């Protein structure tokens, strides 16, 4: 029984602080492995493919997409919402779980935050390309200009998006960097003299471990977590406003903001799981990312997945209860229309499959967790596609009903965004400490419980 009350340690192998430093800095100090190279070259080539597709569509125009007069948003906005959602789990782990004093977050928060930043970068690309003339993207910034001055329309949900996403990116980056400073100092103290050491030193800002600084740093970290928590909720709420403020059956519902936030955290959790399960194997971090970390992440996936499932039911109920023929048609078209298979892929991957995580045996079977996490991401991508395309393609006017099919350019752009994401993530694994040493050292069991007996005179 005693064992039941004393959970296994967060970090396995009775590590000391010195062990942590050595283990986490090891990938930075040894040369890249074959695994790393093959992964990097694969993702970099996919990125190059995406870059070529983007260059082509910017040079030619967005007529290269499969959009038409009825379906004006499809792959681009689907990918945008998908990537933004991925980012949300990083902030959940780093900020919300910090406020809840969840110690297991320490092993995964750094990578999850990096994931947030890269995912938001990928997300930002799509609206930028969708503008058609991305070199005029600065027009979304309200600055005094010689066009009137003509200002942006602050009453538009798309404008709120600009501010929400850019704030989210900036705050996530700052949060991540502030967390990195002490670790950069640790890594630079160990690094061999050379450009890498100089760079690490430059960015460690002269951190010397003074507790006067730590004391302030703790408060700043808490404040940033307190700011990031409402921010992350606001970001996906604003993203959902892009749809909810439009008077289109299937979009115009009040359930959308909580539904989007839950879905975002759901997909992000799945992405964290996907990445962490691979990274712990490839980077040799099995002792740091243990069942104690994977288990709560699985439970969060299950929880958010069930909230999303509830939201799907609420959506259908609203359509039924509204008594509005258009709402009911939109719902039926979503279920049984020509894109019905997307809906059922979404239900299968997002609602049915995560229910397996109720079973501890499955949560412990890491290959199964990996497969589930990948399926959840597939499902969440389809969710956005279903919301956007099935609501648009059959509008109020049957004569304009049409179908949407992505072109090869759009598929290459989507693939390229994955290439960008994984390229950035691999570079991060290689050049920065991917686990927050300063935080893990604070939750080690080594030299804590048994010190009293050792020291007793």
């Amino acid at each position, binding site marked *: 029984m005693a064992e039941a009350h004393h959970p296994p340690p967060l970090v396995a192998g009775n590590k000391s602080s010195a062990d942590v430093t050595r283990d986490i800095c090891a990938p930075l100090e040894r040369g890249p492995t074959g695994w790393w190279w093959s992964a990097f070259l694969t993702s970099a080539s996919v990125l190059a493919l995406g870059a070529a597709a983007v260059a082509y569509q910017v040079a030619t125009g967005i007529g290269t997409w499969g959009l038409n007069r009825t379906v004006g948003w499809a792959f681009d906005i689907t990918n945008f919402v998908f990537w933004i959602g991925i980012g949300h789990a990083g902030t959940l782990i780093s900020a919300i779980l910090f406020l809840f004093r969840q110690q297991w977050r320490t092993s995964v928060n750094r990578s999850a935050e990096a994931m947030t930043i890269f995912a938001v970068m990928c997300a930002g690309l799509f609206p930028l390309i969708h503008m058609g003339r991305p070199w005029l993207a600065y027009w979304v910034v309200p600055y005094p200009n010689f066009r*009137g001055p003509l200002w942006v329309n602050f009453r538009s949900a798309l404008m709120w998006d600009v501010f929400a996403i850019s704030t989210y990116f900036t705050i996530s980056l700052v949060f991540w960097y502030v967390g990195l400073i002490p670790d950069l100092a640790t890594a630079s103290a160990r690094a061999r003299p050379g450009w890498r050491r100089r760079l690490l030193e430059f960015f460690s800002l*002269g951190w*010397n471990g003074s507790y006067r600084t730590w004391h302030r740093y703790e408060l700043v970290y808490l404040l940033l977590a307190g700011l990031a928590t409402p921010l992350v909720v606001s970001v996906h709420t604003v993203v959902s406003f892009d749809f909810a403020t439009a008077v289109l059956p299937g979009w115009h519902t009040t359930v959308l903001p909580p539904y989007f936030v839950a879905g975002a955290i759901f997909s992000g959790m799945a992405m964290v799981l996907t990445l962490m399960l691979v990274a712990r194997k490839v980077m040799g971090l099995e002792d740091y990312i243990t069942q104690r970390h994977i288990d709560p992440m699985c439970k969060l996936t299950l929880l958010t997945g069930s909230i999303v499932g509830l939201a799907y039911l609420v959506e259908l109920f609203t359509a039924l209860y509204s008594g509005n023929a258009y709402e009911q048609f939109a719902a039926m078209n979503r279920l049984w229309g020509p894109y019905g298979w997307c809906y059922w892929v979404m239900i299968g991957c997002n609602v049915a499959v995560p229910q397996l995580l109720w079973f501890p045996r499955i949560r412990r079977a890491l290959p199964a967790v990996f497969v589930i996490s990948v399926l959840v991401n597939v499902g969440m991508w389809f969710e956005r596609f279903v919301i956007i395309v099935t609501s648009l393609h059959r509008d109020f006017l049957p004569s304009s009903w049409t179908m949407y099919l992505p072109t090869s350019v759009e598929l290459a752009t989507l693939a390229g965004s994955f290439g960008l994401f994984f390229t950035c993530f691999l570079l991060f694994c290689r050049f920065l400490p991917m686990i927050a040493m300063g935080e893990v050292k604070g939750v080690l069991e080594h030299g804590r419980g048994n010190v009293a007996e050792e020291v007793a005179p």
Partner: protein
Amino acid sequence: MSKRTLVAVFEHEADLMRAVAAVRAADLKIDDVYAPYAVHGLDRALGWRPSRLGWACALGGMSGAIFMLWLQWWTSAVSWPLNVGGKPWNSLPAFVPVAFEGMVLAAGLTTVFALLAVARLRPGKKTRPIVPGVADDRFALVLEEADAAFDAAAASKLLRNCRAVEVSERVLEDEFSPLGAPAGAARTRLRRRLNYLLLLLLAVVVAMVFLTLPDPSRPNREFFPDMAHSPAYSSASANPNFPDGKTLQSPVPGVLTQGQSPLHYDATDAEALRAGRELRNPFSAKDAKAGARGALVFQTYCTPCHGGGGLGDGAVALRGYPAPPSLVTGDTTKMPDGQLFHIITYGRVNMPAQSGLLSPEDRWAAILHIRSLQTPTAPKSIEAKP
């Protein structure tokens, strides 16, 4: 400025905590503690007050929110009021999301920059660990030897009792003081370098002023013309895309322009008779406005040949061109309006077609005037008309 200190090194957090408690009990002054991570509860053990950086956060957040609210109100309601869906200029509920984002952004950035400022952290600052391993797994407790009464030997013994692995007396430079500024010599060197850099920059700017003198005879370079120049062909310019090389294309034969109604008649006398049977003047004789217009049209286009009174004594006829028949006597008085319209439109004998010059409305108005000339009570020339 430098100070004399006693530096003790510990391997375990618990030892450090006990040492801190012991040192405070002995009433010795703790300068600082160095640790590889934020030791939980150490601030309470040291008796330090909470940081006041929360105020920076609050201030930054409030400024951000207020600024964004103001900006949205000013741009939407004052600088360029734009009617969007009939919403009020000051659409306060719509301004909430952006004001919120502005608050979070300003609060976060202010807090971090305030931390960097008060902790004297800046990019490129040299890191010199107080003892090796303090960034790894060692803890260092620094006691300040404030005055001569400080008993280094007793303090060392106290620290070693708390399992300090190493205790040494050190003279620390300012860098390690809580308000550590760069040491004097280093600061002077830095300032000198900065001055050289600024001087060089000034020289470059001054040189640029002379090297790039503006040429008022040439237009400035445009970086973002923002559609000031249209890529479309102008109507009179040559165009390689059409076989005739013109941009402005003539309409396809048979096309009707806007407002034009088709006339399905041939230019023969029989067709003129048919037009007389079929067409009716859209204007009535009582329409003063149409009458005035008809008088003007008649004076402009008909007088040269037909004469002001319609007698066929126009200036052209007087010069020898075959005179037209009188409009006020004979056949013309018997012709219906439709036939006259046909004649004006398609021409007859020596009279050319007027359809290219006169709109259908003007032709009907001119007929109205001819009818008024034919009425004996009517004034004989337009000068008499008001």
